[in-house]
């Protein structure tokens, strides 16, 4: 695979289209829809206390199970809590879990993959076989096992989501490093005696950034979904915290009796936020992956 650094010059020559990174990205309509969703949810999460008309945890059984109305835009749940407010506050939890989860995956996966790829040999083999073992588990089952063993809660859900994502990043970084370490600029660095750690950080990592960025964006969507699944299964947030997965779990008892709004709105929130990250991730890949880009 080519790196951006090398490739950027060749792209600049085909001057007919706006071909800067942002220019290409802005032209990608789907990526823009994704970005819109992400910005929307980020805004909602940041200003949740201002936007939400009610407290997300205030119960009032006198108004329980009310259908969407002017007073309660998304209706109320079985405790009379305002679903609109809960969805808004849920955005905070979901985005946080996604960011922390992917953060953990990156912080551990990228160095591990880099070391394994750069040094290779026995060390690399051991690291990558451990990663393969982790990959062999279905990710949700692994996350459930981790969350259950640490004890259910928001933090353990974040840790579980993070650990599950490690091998993906490690493998990606491993592949990048293996191809990059043979490049002339790395060899040149080694020849003049630059330390391994500096080569990895300053020369290999920046050149591997593009695919990692794509992976991290897609990973955010996956992390949100996994965290919501954990909460749905009772391994995530503690009641009465508003979290989309937990809201769906609580509301599913009411599907038959006709209170569709309890699960529909958090469901919609999950869909749009994940769709946002996936669309943007795909868009980023289109822009950053030289093979696709030059092919156009």
């Amino acid at each position, binding site marked *: 695979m080519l790196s951006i650094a090398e490739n950027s010059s060749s792209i600049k020559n085909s001057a007919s289209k706006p071909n800067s990174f942002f220019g290409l990205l802005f032209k990608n309509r789907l990526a823009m829809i994704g970005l819109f969703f992400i910005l929307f949810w980020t805004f909602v999460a940041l200003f949740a206390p201002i936007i939400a008309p009610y407290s997300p945890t205030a119960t009032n059984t006198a108004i329980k199970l009310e259908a969407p109305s002017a007073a309660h835009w998304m209706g109320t749940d*079985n405790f009379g809590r305002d679903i609109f407010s809960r969805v808004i506050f849920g955005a905070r939890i979901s985005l946080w879990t996604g960011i922390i989860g992917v953060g953990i995956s990156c912080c551990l996966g990228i160095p591990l993959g880099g070391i394994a790829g750069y040094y290779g040999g026995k060390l690399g083999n051991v690291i990558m076989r451990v990663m393969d073992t982790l990959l062999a588990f279905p990710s949700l089952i692994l996350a459930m096992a981790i969350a259950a063993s640490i004890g259910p809660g928001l933090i353990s859900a974040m840790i579980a989501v993070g650990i599950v994502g490690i091998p993906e990043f490690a493998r990606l970084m491993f592949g990048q490093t293996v191809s990059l370490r043979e490049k002339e600029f790395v060899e040149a660095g080694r020849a003049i005696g630059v330390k391994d750690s500096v080569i990895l950080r300053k020369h290999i990592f920046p050149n591997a950034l593009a695919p990692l960025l794509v992976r991290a964006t897609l990973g955010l969507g996956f992390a949100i979904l996994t965290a919501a699944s954990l909460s749905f299964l009772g*391994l995530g947030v*503690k*009641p009465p915290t508003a979290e989309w997965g937990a809201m769906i779990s609580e509301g599913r008892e009411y599907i*038959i009796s006709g209170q569709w709004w309890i699960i529909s709105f958090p469901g919609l929130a999950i869909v749009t936020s994940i769709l946002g990250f996936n669309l943007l991730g795909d868009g980023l890949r289109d822009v950053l992956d030289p093979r696709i880009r030059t092919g156009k």
Partner: protein
Amino acid sequence: MKKTKWLAVVLASVMLLTAAGCGTNANQAVNAGAAAGKEIVLAYSDGGQTMDPAEANDLTSDTLVLAAYDQLITYGVKKANGADIANTEELKPMLAKEWKVSDDQKTYTFTLQDNAKFQSGNPVNAQAVVWSLDHVKNSKSGSFLYGMAEIESCTAKDDKTVEIKLSQPNHLFLQIIAMYTFSIIDPAVVKDKGADYLKNNEAGSGPYKVEKWDPATEAVFTANPNYWQGAAKISKVTMKFIKEASNRVTLLDKGDADMAIEIPAQNVADLKKNANLTVRSDASNRILYLAFNTKVKPFDNPKVRQAISYAIPYDKLVHDVMYDQAKQMKSAVASNTPGFTDAGFVYKYDLDKAKQLLKEAGYENGFSFDFTLGSGFQDWQDDAVLIQAELAKIGVKMNIQNMARAQFLEAQKTHNLTAYISKWTSFVNDPGYHLGFLLYGKGTSNYGNYQNAQVDKLWEQANVEPDQAKRNELYKQAQQIITTDAPWVYLYEYNRVVGMNKNLKGYVFYPDEIIRFYSLSK
């Protein structure tokens, strides 16, 4: 080209074979249906653990056992508001046609039915009874009840007479011996097939044979045509195991199931609108309580426990969580248990009183505690959230810790949980049995470590008191002390909600909540 042809031939033959296979299966099904007569489908939630009467310990396993086995004696049935419910105080003959009690109340002599036969064709005789009781004694789960029955020895006097000696008079003996645990097993079958045979197969004299039992999907029973009390009216019963409550409700609503159990309270009103269905909602003796660890600060202080009891939105729990399919609980004993009293129950939702009690206990500024919430029951979670919101108003922070059900049951047994919600059904509807497990100092299920010397003394006194009225008086005193002490917050008593098709008749509600198929008809 050659390859394609060859493939086509193979495909064609496979299709033909499949079609032929379908044909035979369909024919078989039709034949079976014609011969079998009346069939019903029941929607259950759990698939059960074992078919061994002495080891069965969950609702589905117990149901399997009661379909396939008989007991020496059984409970009577009475009418209440036009519906049939079991009368556990009245004991009726089953495999034993009569029994005598010695004057010292320590020797019971049972005479067996002349015509009772096991499904294998062997007669039900005294040796089988002795063998079956011995089986309970040596079992993991049932041996506890054997000890509780205070059985000292069991001997066969002749082919049809069994004598059971007790180590001391026990007013619960007959009620315990009527439980499914003490089912009479055919020893010849077990000797022939080995000891593990009972786990997955039956060897009883009961009204139904188990054709198939797969805990993941379904159990199928066919009526025993030679049943000694006459063959059952329903010739085939299929129990479908469906975890998700909403799916059970849908099956019932659409008419694909003749009966569904464990119906969520919020669906009751809708189901009642369906003209093809009857919804039975019977007050059970299944109670739900919030238990404190009375050995842990601050719950070692009765004032703190009382304060919490004053901060509970009792009406909301019954009305908004249970949709009125429950009743407020006012004693540690269920209200339909003989000897129940609500004396001492002064608690009502009164936050000022709660705050005042906290102040007296030295917790004017509140405190925080860990609350363990076992999974599996939506209403538990709803209760916890509502209680949490109320406690916050008196400065008490309740941290809800979720725990998977299996883990929760284990954690309870450590006696280390600070506070938790739990349910209980006493299969023997008697305060002695009930309190003996739950709140007697040495009770095996006293997971909140409640200890009150006075309560223990009253319980022990009652245990050896032969006169029922005097015994109940002692239990009432114990209940009053417990209620005042407030080791539990009393939440509610569940109704047993069963939905069934209008044309299904003969449902009898038993306090143990197990459905006996034999009385059903269509």
